[in-house]
């Protein structure tokens, strides 16, 4: 089918190019510098000349000619059409024969032939694999570029690492222009195919970045040893697929000291008292696209009298983490209190403590009412 298409397009091309005037292109401006190899800028946006041997391969002209295939995303058909038009045009410019031009023409034909076959195969693969398939084709090879020595080259790729020189001093003006424009035409078309995968990829990349930002800024502060622990966990339990690029869903908490506030019932009222505590071990779990997290740890806490309380602590995200501690008082009676914690950084904000107390009282008011008085 591809061959049929190529043949059909070749016929069309022959008809089209045979009507073109053989006048020299007024657009050709080979730039002879000290480097002496010319300049080949992307002619995109500048309308193709009305006449001239090279007008058929102008990027805008080719795009207009194969607009229907391009609009229908018939990329393989469009590429085959481009290749056929280019081949025909270069053939017409090949006489009288010149070894430099023949070498370029052969190299270009080899590259377009292999790309045409590869592109047809790539387009048959699932959309998710398109970019990978295109990368195997070195799709950027058709763009004329300037190399490290300042010389113009084309078809630079893994197969031809240094590219093929595009030397304006060894080609006629039409030959130079036709290769230059052909390269840009093919480059633009293949770049369009590749671009199909770009918006989806960008959305994934930016979503990952937003997740990391939430993870870094909204999660519980990790001390260095916890970061090390969680990094090691990631090395042991290696995430797969897209998870490799996302933050972890589960973080371990270990030996994490913090300043806390204990809400205790004294004489029928709820009083906040400062406390020094440490989460001995536990975990934080992220959910809802890393927008929320919950955690549970086992804590020990010292009150102002140095008595040790122990109990579970639950992290519900946001500013407050609440734990239910039990400790024995001086008389040996077991007492319970509500512990709320504040990450050290957040303590710097003056409104955080009263806000946290209000929140804790609101959330756990019912619980506190049921605690035995201290």
């Amino acid at each position, binding site marked *: 089918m591809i061959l049929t298409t190529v043949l059909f397009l070749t016929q069309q091309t022959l008809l089209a190019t045979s009507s073109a005037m053989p006048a020299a292109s007024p657009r050709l401006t080979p*730039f002879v*510098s*000290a*480097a002496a190899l010319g*300049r080949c800028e*992307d002619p*995109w946006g500048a309308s193709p000349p009305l006449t001239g041997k090279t007008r058929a391969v102008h990027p805008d002209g080719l795009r207009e000619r194969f607009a229907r295939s391009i609009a229908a995303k018939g990329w393989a058909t469009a590429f085959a059409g481009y290749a056929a038009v280019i081949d025909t045009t270069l053939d017409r410019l090949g006489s009288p024969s010149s070894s430099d031009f023949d070498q370029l023409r052969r190299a270009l034909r080899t590259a377009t032939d292999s790309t045409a076959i590869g592109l047809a195969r790539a387009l048959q693969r699932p959309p998710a*694999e398109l*970019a*990978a398939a*295109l*990368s195997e084709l*070195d*799709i950027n090879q058709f*763009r004329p*570029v*300037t*190399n*490290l*020595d*300042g010389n113009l080259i084309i078809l*630079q790729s*893994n197969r031809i*690492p*240094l590219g093929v020189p595009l030397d304006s001093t060894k080609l006629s003006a039409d030959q130079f222009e036709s290769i230059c424009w052909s390269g840009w035409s093919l*480059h*633009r078309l293949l*770049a*369009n195919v*590749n*671009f*199909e*995968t*770009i918006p*989806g*990829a*960008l959305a*994934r*990349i*930016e979503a*990952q*970045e937003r997740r*990391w930002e939430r*993870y*870094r800024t909204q999660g519980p*502060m990790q001390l*260095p*040893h916890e*970061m*090390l*622990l969680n*990094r090691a966990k990631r090395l042991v339990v290696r995430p797969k697929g*897209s998870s*490799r*690029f996302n*933050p972890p869903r589960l973080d371990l908490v*270990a*030996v994490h000291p913090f300043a806390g506030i204990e809400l205790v019932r004294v004489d029928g009222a709820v009083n906040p008292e400062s406390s020094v505590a440490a989460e001995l071990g536990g975990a934080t779990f992220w959910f809802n696209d890393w927008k929320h997290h919950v955690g549970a740890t086992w804590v020990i806490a010292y009150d102002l009298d140095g008595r040790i309380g122990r109990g579970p602590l639950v992290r519900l995200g946001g500013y407050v983490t609440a734990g239910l501690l039990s400790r024995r008082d001086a008389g040996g009676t077991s007492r319970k209190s509500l512990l709320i914690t504040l990450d*050290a*950084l957040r303590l710097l904000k003056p409104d955080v403590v009263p806000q946290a107390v209000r929140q804790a009282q609101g959330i756990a008011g019912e619980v506190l009412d049921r605690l035995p008085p201290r």
Partner: protein
Amino acid sequence: MARKILFVIHGIGQRAPDDAVDKPRFAAENWPGDVITNFLELAGKHAPGVDIGLNPGPTGIKVVPLHYCDIIIEQLERWDSLGDKNVADAVARQFPGLPTQFVDVLRDISTADAPFFWRGGVDILLYRVFHDIAIRSHVRAQVTRTLFDNAVNGVLPACGFITHSMGTAVMHDVLAEIFANPIEFGGFVNMDIDIYVSLANVSKILENVANPQKSPVRPFGAPGIGRARCRAFVNAHHESDPVPYLGLFNPDWSTTTTPYRDVRIERITQPNTHAYEGYLENPRVWIPIFRTLLETPISKADADALIDEYDATPPPACAQALDDLRASVKRIAEAWKNRAGAVGTWQFVVELTKARRVLAEAKARCFGAAGGVEGML
């Protein structure tokens, strides 16, 4: 919109002044300092017809500074050990589970070196050990968003990269990860890299993703794993800059069969031989960028003349300090070499911290504490 993009990424030690309100953001927005300004001045002089800048026209070349220092500063702000003079003890306190041998390695950083650790060396640990995935995600988002925003008619702009010091490792890892994961990162895997410039490359010792001497971030034609992605690759290292010795990046790519240039710089024009600006002002470095990305026709004769003119710049009038610098760097390089491969991130941090002090001392002896090019010191 722009026709081409030139990405420029920083190394370690980017910090905001004490009076900055939002330090991470300040550092991220202001890190280029004179690096880009000086480069644009060179372009104005040697490529006057080229539209290049931070905000060029639609057919111009856009210079885009990339940053990750904001993540590092943000983290350091959360930890209160910043500025601790006794680095090893501070790290041991903060890393109670850390094996003793790692802490012992850090004890090798003397008290005099400590400021250099907290103003730079710690960045390496934060990238290499803790925040590598987050930092790569951060830089990847900047690169891909820029390419997308500057695409015209469904064609991504061609691009170039200038990387320096730890930025060589970060940028390498970002690109290598993109190239290795086309299903995840789609058509960005086919980005068109006109030139990749690494200055004082440390990616070999700090890489987190793939061996940079084999990864796809290599010049076309160089042997390696996966397809090569760079149309041109310039690796510049100053003989009197200790960092690239420690970085161990020394590919055996051919300069005749691949588009690779190994730029070895001998002349000391200023004592901070590691400075970003110092590398970029050297015509051996910027001429390849001008030729490839800016498409400026600079003939071999012109290039040789520019290099001769640069080399004729008189060195700073502090010959003894520069001789001592050369000797110190030689000692550091020899000692590193004699470790016979027993090197890793932790040892690198220690030696880099010492090396930065050596450079700072040379600078101070030549110009006084506040003089000379700051760079990343």
